[in-house]
Structure formats: structure tokens, C-alpha cells
């Protein structure tokens, strides 16, 4: 499973994250739909690979790091 951010880049260079998607097909579909909107024509879109974390159970890590308060 891929993990991808879709970013919207406005004419002034401001970057706005559209969302986090889990397949290239899904991300590309979203970009295509956004490009179809006339008001969004001034924006560029980029699909950026996000860091994928290995699934781990948290309890082991938690017990080591949770400080006594």
C-alpha cells in the first residue's frame, strides 16, 4: 500500500495539503477531479510520497517511555 500526499500549489506559491491517500490511483483520481474544476485551473497539483511507518503495537514502546507524573 502506498501512502501519498496530494498538495495544491497556488499561483503565489502557497502550498495547501489536500489530503493523505493510500494508492496512486486514488490520488490521481482526486487530482483529475480537481483539475476539472474551472475555478481551480490556476492551481498546480503534486503527488508526494509520504513516509510509511511499520505497523507496531504501541504498548511495548509506551511502557518504556511513559514518565511517571
Amino acid at each position: 500500500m502506498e501512502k501519498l500526499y496530494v498538495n495544491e500549489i497556488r499561483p503565489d506559491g502557497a502550498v495547501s495539503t489536500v489530503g493523505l491517500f493510500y494508492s496512486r490511483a486514488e490520488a490521481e483520481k482526486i487530482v483529475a477531479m480537481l483539475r476539472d474544476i474551472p475555478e481551480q485551473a490556476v492551481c498546480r497539483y503534486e503527488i508526494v510520497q509520504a513516509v510509511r511507518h511499520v505497523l507496531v503495537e504501541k504498548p511495548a514502546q509506551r511502557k518504556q517511555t511513559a514518565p511517571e507524573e
Partner: protein
Amino acid sequence: MRGITPRREQGMADPVLAEMVRATGATESRHFAAVKPVIQAYRASWVKLAPYRDGPVNSQRVTVDDPAPMTAQIKQKAKELGADMVGVCRLQPHMIDLGSEVVHEFVIACCVAEDYEKVTEGADAVEEEAMRTYAKCTEIATALAAYIRQMGYPAIAHHNGASEVQAIPIFYQVGFGELGRHGSLINEEFGASFRPGFVTTDLPLVEDQPRESGVQDFCMHCNVCQRNCPGDAIPQDHVMTHGIKRWLIDLEKCYPYSRLRDEYCHLCVDVCPYIVKSHPETYKAFMKERKQVGYKTPKTY
């Protein structure tokens, strides 16, 4: 007006969930398969009301010379119907689902708070309370839309049965609160423990304004939801969307706890310190339990 905000598919239509279910060798999500009759009844209630989202508009229109008293009347009506908070804003493209079109000028946001005493009883109680409040929001939105149409203005209800609008950007714009680290909007009184219903309409109304009270600044340093998330699905870093900080929940980590088990997971909302104002004793007792099982809790509790 055409929407620009993608909406995740729900249930097994969500491609992430579908792939995770396949990867575990199952055919359906345990969470969705293990639905109790009371939950089925709540879900059936919003499906039943979906056809009544829209309807005939009274041809005799009430004249609105001043939108302020009309706005007060609508808010009063929503509260009589059972809403805990009501707000109004002008509809904007980022509040509408990508691929949908909504022609109305305003959106009325209603929310119903969950019973915090009940949700802290455990996973089953959380799910039942969530569905109860969703069903109540559906009733409120449906009745409020009908009330407005009776005054001669078009109005459509948006709720769990069917919707083209998105809760978080609307809740932010009407001043209910700010987006929290756990991905839900945080209100100073109710925390994030509330559910939405909406009405879009052309009835002339007065807009509320976003209200920033330092929630996001607090979230930057709090991290209690992140440290209590059993799946480690709440990120440390945020992204920006339309100038607003967003912490994007990692569904790949969240779903094994919230969808691939029988139990509903609501911990990120339950541990949010903002709920302490409305439920001080329950919150303290709940966080004490969390601490006893090894999770980090706020210093003051």
C-alpha cells in the same frame, strides 16, 4: 457551487479498509459485521429519513427584512429540536464534497454533544452513543430544513443518511472551535465529543465568525491524544490546508484498532483535556484509569 474537498468512502467502500480486510484474509470489517440491533436501528433511522432531506417549498415566502432576528429564530428552533450548538456561515467550495454541487448560499451547522459519562464506559457504549447522536442530528437537520421550506425558502438537510457537505470546515467557520491534533474539531466546552447535522439554504441569515481560542496552540504541546492512541496513528507533524493546521490521521494505523476489531475506538476524543471543563470528575477518573494501565496523562490529573 462545486465542491473541492475529497471525502473518504465509508465502510467497505473505503479502499484502505478494503485492502486491510483482504490482507487479513477476512471478507468484511469486524467492526461493521458485529453490529448490534440497537446500532442497526439507529443506522436505519437516518436511511429512513434520507428521502425527506428536501421537499416542496411553500410558494408563500416569509419576507425577511432583517436577517438578524431570522437567524435568532432559526437557532432557537434548532435548539428546541435538540441541538447543543448552532452556527451559520456562507457556504464555500472547500465545505462541499469534491464532485458535488450545492446551490445554496448559507449552511446552518447543528451539533449534538455525546454523553461523556456514557462514552467512557467502553467501546460498546461509545458506539451506541455515537450512533444515538448521529440519529438525533439527522432528526434535527431534517426537521429544520422542513421548517425553512415552510417559510418559503429552499433548504436541504445533510446528515449521515446523505450529505454533500463536510463537517470540519463548516464547524470551524461558524466558530464552534478549532481543528485538534486528533483530526476532530475541538470545542472549549464539549471537547471533540459531538456529532454533526447541517442544513443548506437560501434563507437570508447572519454569518457567525471563526473563533480561535488557542486550541491549536495547545495541541502543539499537549500530545495526550497522540500518546494514548493505541495504534500510534496521530502524527507529530502537521500540514497546512487553506491556512489551517491539520494533523492527518494515519488510517493504516488507526483502522486495526477502530475497524478491524469488534470494538469502536474513541480514545483520542475521550482523553482530550478540553472535555474537562464540562465533565471534570469523569475526566479525572477516566485519566486515572488510563494512567494505571500505562498511558501518559496530563500533569494536572
